[in-house]
């Protein structure tokens, strides 16, 4: 079962947010995106990073992805 950083089970909504965050991280790691996609994915990932941080779902750094 998926948990937050304090070990609590996540809600279905939080699961959705985590899935979106994971998908954006995967996209930001790809080298084949055109500039318009690469940079906007990073902006979107920064927003989702903020959501998962605010909700205590994840806490990590994304500088190596250029975010």
């Amino acid at each position, binding site marked *: 079962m998926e948990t937050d*950083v*304090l070990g609590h089970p996540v809600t279905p909504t939080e699961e959705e947010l985590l899935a979106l965050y994971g998908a954006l991280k995967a996209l930001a790691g790809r080298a084949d995106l055109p500039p318009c996609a690469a940079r906007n994915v*990073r*902006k979107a*990932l*920064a*927003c989702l*990073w*903020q959501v998962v*941080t*605010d*909700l*205590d779902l994840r*806490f*990590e*750094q*994304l*500088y*190596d992805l*250029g*975010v």
Partner: protein
Amino acid sequence: MPTSYSPYWNPKNETLPRDELRALQLYKLRNLSEWAYARSPFHRRRFDAAGYRPAQLKTLDDLRRIPLMTREEWMASQLERPLFGDLLATQEVNAIRYHLTSGSSGRVPIRVLDSTKDWEWISELWCYGLWGFGVRPEDVVYFAFGYGSFIGFWGAHYGAEKLGALVIPGGAQSTENRVRQILEMGVTTVCSTPTYAFRLCQQATEMGIDLATDSRVDKLIVSGEPGGCIPAVRRRLEQAWGARCGDVAGMTEIGTLVVFECAHQPCGTHIIEDHVLEEVLHPERGEPVGYGELGERVVTSFGRAFMPLIRYRSRDMVMKVPHTTCGCGRTSDLYAGGIRGRWDDMQLIRGTNVYPRAVEEIVREHDAVDEFQIYIWRQDDLRDEITVRVELKPNRVAEWPELREKLAAALSSAHEGLRFNVDQVACGTLPRFELKAKRLVDGRPMTARGG
């Protein structure tokens, strides 16, 4: 858009039980110190010198194993390895923004870099504060701010945009034009320093405008100086604007606001404890002080890891009180009276400690005062003197003789009988400020200053 909103920007964490909040802080602190040790030569060097390893962090009390970080160390690192020193934990190419401290202390400014996600975080913390004071998507928010390299209200601008308000950047224009724009655009919320909020009122009065009745402003959010939590300053601002006045504070070194006053206006500022860890230590001995005791604010930022800030000595003077002091339901502790000034602002005059904030508290009690300045000088190369220069409102100059006596007595009484000189200066002669006000002028020889 919903017509009723949560009073909290982040209901989950703003009402988190204290034990869970501390567990969250420990998790983040461990993660951040591991990151800093692995990636920042500055922190690795300091941690090694102190014999600290992130794995030693088992409880929050263990944080005292982490060495305190000073501005002087940071400046020295910058000077040794221009431009940013060896504090950086990632490559400069990952940055999207450069800012520097205001330089109001007269020292070498601190240079900072931030990434895309850092700026997301910077604006996010402003959202906590703006939302907490009552700013909503229907609001029109005006920033009376110069938009330069000093970080000032940059984060607030993005925070207000993020929460959906209409943002008006009031940069690069005269005070007169700003007053006109506030009226023309139906502004509901003004963000500025307390000093500049007064300046806008003065300008409006000269233009025949009463901001309390002629504008739609109902919220005034002030930062950059201690004034927002000084009762006399707040009362005068609220009267002049016909608006609620709230205090917020941050620092360039962190990049954003980290304490804010909620809509309950407790004359204290909630600490955003899910994103920062704030300790209050004795300024000389470095031991933690309890609730209700004055101490130095020491900050760890969980948000900006480009240049990690861990146990950073701010020199800010604060008094922490428990979250139950405020009835808003937030579980974050507060700083009663906000940021009360800086420990290094203290001036020693003939053996008595004088803080500019304490002087301002007394001077601002008098509505006839338009502006003031504290001037410290040396008599006959021997004795330190303190003079409060007072500028009265043009229509109130007849009150001077009585006011002078009252001010001299009140200032002396509040400072162990120390004699204050109180002088009147002509209307419009003292400087006005847009950013941080510098009302203390030290005219003593550089080698002989006691403060």
